[in-house]
């Protein structure tokens, strides 16, 4: 049995990755250099100009789904949050979605099974919706937040018709469809489908779900409240 890992300033990143290898993806979103050699959490935080408590918070959230109290979001964390979310979008758009799409298409081309065709259509529709959402964030929400954040230093008030309120609850749909797809694969897709298709797709959806979950948490529970504070200035 694996021993649980204790997260503090001295915890080595190598131990964290070895414990839960999928976390490499989120470290990449923070621009953390891999290999990590012997560096611990405070080394990495200093090197990447990340608030140490924020780094510990995100690691705890990913590993244990736990929200640590030590971390209170700071206005200046907006920079790292935006970096993370933008990198995460890139990863989804350029790697994760095309990768899953390829698994489905390849299996369909090989088998021409109706069941795979249904999954293919469902995923294409899902993919399209998610990309539209990311596009909206990249084009509208993030530039707005950056402008708002920069205006604090200049002590000027910005005028905008947009406010972050509009952007809440955008994620529910994305999670709902992903969950539907998982249930179809686990509960209903018949045993006649090509043998490793279900497994391969599920493992990839697991990674996607985990990444999306962290993504939504950072946006809904940390970034939006911070931006609401900024708007109230």
């Amino acid at each position, binding site marked *: 049995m694996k021993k649980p890992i204790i997260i503090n300033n001295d915890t080595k990143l190598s131990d964290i990755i070895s414990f839960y290898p999928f976390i490499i993806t989120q470290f990449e979103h923070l621009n953390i250099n891999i290999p990590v050699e012997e560096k611990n959490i405070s080394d990495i935080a200093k090197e990447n100009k990340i608030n140490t408590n924020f780094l510990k918070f995100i690691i705890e959230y990913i590993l244990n789904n736990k929200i640590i109290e030590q971390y209170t979001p700071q206005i200046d964390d907006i920079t790292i949050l935006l970096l993370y979310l933008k990198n995460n979008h890139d990863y989804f758009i350029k790697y994760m979605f095309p990768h899953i799409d390829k698994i489905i298409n390849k299996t369909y081309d090989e088998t021409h099974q109706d069941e795979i065709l249904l999954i293919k259509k469902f995923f294409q529709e899902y993919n399209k919706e998610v990309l539209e959402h990311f596009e909206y964030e990249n084009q509208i929400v993030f530039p707005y937040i950056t402008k708002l954040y920069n205006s604090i230093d200049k002590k000027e008030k910005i005028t905008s018709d947009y406010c972050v309120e509009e952007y809440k609850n955008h994620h529910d749909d994305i999670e709902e*469809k992903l969950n539907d797809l998982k*249930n179809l694969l686990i509960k209903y897709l018949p045993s006649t489908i090509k043998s490793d298709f279900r497994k391969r797709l599920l493992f990839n959806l697991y990674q996607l779900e985990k990444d999306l979950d962290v993504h939504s948490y950072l946006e809904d529970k940390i970034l939006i409240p911070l931006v609401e504070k900024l708007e109230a200035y």
Partner: protein
Amino acid sequence: MQMKIKIYTNSDIIYYGLKEILYSNQFNFELLNNIKDLANCDDASTIHIIDNVLLFDTHNIDLIKRCTSHNIVLLQTTYLQSSLQNLFNIIINLDEKDETIKFKIFKLFNNKTDHQQTNAILSEREIEVLKLIVSGYQNKEIADKLNISINTVLTHRKNISQKTGIKSVSGLTIFAVLKNIISLEETTNL
């Protein structure tokens, strides 16, 4: 659910060959030399695979004609006239690849069990509502069609999602196709 596969043949090569190809822990196999046993068993969870050499005896053909509710598969080892081929749910040819044979039998197996299981998951009324949802009807239209209130429609929708674990219309559409509630050609929401 355990499924029984009864293989009617005089050839050990055919029996053991089919058993090898179809091997799965969902299946129980049985070798029978005489087709007369067919009449004693109209259990829906049994698939009968018949070597057509046994059909040279016309009494046997009459027997098969009487067993309309059975899942009967013809193993075509020699040519059988096409009017008789219609008596069977599916036909397997001797020169077919193992994957194809597996696919045909598994499909028959899934069709039979899925129908029973869906009925167990969803009530008749819920299946009716599901059909309308995946055909693109709105709540108000469903209420009018079935002569029930919108609230009842919403309760049905909630129960369908709870029972199946699927919330989106496109997800429910796939569910309905997989369970043979609608056909692939009828799907409008994908």
